[in-house]
C-alpha cells in the first residue's frame, strides 16, 4: 500500500518534505496505525505518538487524506491511495507527525476543567438524577485528541485567544453538571469576543470528532445560557 508522509526533523532537515512509502501489509494490519507501525519497522526515524490503539487515549490524531482523525480507528480499506498523512494543522510541528499541543491544552486548562463545589460534601455521594446525569452524555467522553480544534479555522487564526471546540465542550460539561456551582463564573470567563464568540458554527469540529461528539451544539447551549442571564 502506498503512503505519502509529512517528514520534518529539525535536527536534520532545513524544511519539511513528503516521503513516499510503499509497504507490504500483513492480513492482520487493518487500521492505519497498524500500517504506520509496519512502516516504522522499516524506517525507525518516522516519529508519531500512539498508545491505546483503540481510540480512547487520543494520542494518534493526525491529518489523513486531508481530514483529521485517529490513525488507530481509521480502516485502511476505507482510504484512497496514496494515503497522505500530515500532522494536525494549525499547531507547531515538533517532528514528523508530532505537533506541539501546549496551546491546545492551555485553552483546555483555561476553562477550569474541574468540578467546583464549595458546599461541604455529604458522607456518601452527592445525589444526581439519571436525567441530570444524562446531560453529561456527549460531553464527558471527549478524549482531548485535538482533531476538532485543529480543524477549526477560528482556532487556526486565534489559537491563543479562542478556546476552541474541545475546550468549549468541556466548559459546557461542567456547566451542565448539576453538582457544579460555578456556572456564573464559567459564563463570565467566556463572555468575550474571542474566547467563545469566535465560533461561527462552521462545524468542522462535529464533522471530524472521532467520538461523534458535537461541540457546536454545546457552544450553542452556552450562548443560550448567556442570553438567558442577560435578557
Amino acid at each position, binding site marked *: 500500500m502506498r503512503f505519502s508522509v509529512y517528514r520534518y526533523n529539525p535536527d536534520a532537515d532545513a524544511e519539511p518534505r513528503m516521503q513516499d512509502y510503499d509497504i507490504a501489509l500483513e492480513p492482520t494490519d487493518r487500521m492505519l496505525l497498524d500500517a504506520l507501525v509496519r512502516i516504522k519497522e522499516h524506517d525507525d526515524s518516522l516519529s508519531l505518538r500512539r498508545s491505546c490503539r483503540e481510540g480512547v487515549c487520543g494520542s494518534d490524531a493526525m491529518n489523513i487524506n486531508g481530514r483529521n482523525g485517529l490513525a488507530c480507528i481509521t480502516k485502511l480499506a476505507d482510504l484512497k491511495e496514496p494515503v497522505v498523512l500530515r500532522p494536525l494543522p494549525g499547531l507547531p510541528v515538533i517532528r514528523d507527525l508530532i505537533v506541539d499541543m501546549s496551546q491546545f491544552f492551555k485553552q483546555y486548562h483555561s476553562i477550569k476543567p474541574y468540578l467546583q463545589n464549595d458546599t461541604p460534601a455529604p458522607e456518601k455521594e452527592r445525589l444526581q438524577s439519571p436525567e441530570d446525569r444524562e446531560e453529561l452524555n456527549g460531553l464527558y467522553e471527549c478524549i482531548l485528541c485535538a482533531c476538532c480544534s485543529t480543524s477549526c479555522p*477560528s482556532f487556526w*487564526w*486565534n489559537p*491563543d*485567544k479562542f478556546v476552541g471546540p474541545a475546550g468549549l465542550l468541556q466548559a459546557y460539561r461542567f456547566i451542565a453538571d448539576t453538582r457544579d456551582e460555578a456556572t456564573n463564573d464559567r459564563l*463570565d470567563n*467566556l*463572555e*468575550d*469576543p*474571542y*474566547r*467563545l*464568540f*469566535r465560533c*461561527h458554527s462552521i462545524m468542522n469540529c462535529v464533522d471530524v470528532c472521532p467520538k461523534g461528539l458535537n461541540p457546536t451544539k454545546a457552544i450553542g447551549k452556552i*450562548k443560550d445560557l*448567556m*442570553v438567558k442571564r*442577560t*435578557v
Partner: protein
Amino acid sequence: MVNRIVVGAHYGLRDWLAQRVTAVIIGLYTFLSIGLLLTGPKIDFATWRLLFTPQWMKFATLLFLFSVFVHAWIGVRDIVMDYIKPTGLRLALYSVFIVALIVYAAWSVRILWGL
C-alpha cells in the same frame, strides 16, 4: 518583552446578540419590500417616491439601514479580528470603517428626508 495574551472584554455576548437582532430586522424589511414590490403596481419614479413618503416607511427604512451598518460593523470587525494582528493597523482599519459607517448613516438620513 512579555507577550501576554489578554482576553476578557465583556462585549462578546452583546455584539453577538446585536448581530442576530439586526439580522432579523434586515430579514423582515427585505421580506416586506419584496412583498410590496411584487403585489404593488408597476414601479416607476412616481410610485417609488410615493412608497417612501409616509413617515413610518422612512423610519422603517432607516432602521433597516442602521441594522445593516451595525451588522456590517460586527462582521467586518470579526474578520479584522481573525486576520489583522498588529494592534495599530487594526485600530486604524476600525477607525476607517467607523467613519465610513457614520458617513453612510448620515447620508441615509439625508436621502430619506431629502435634506
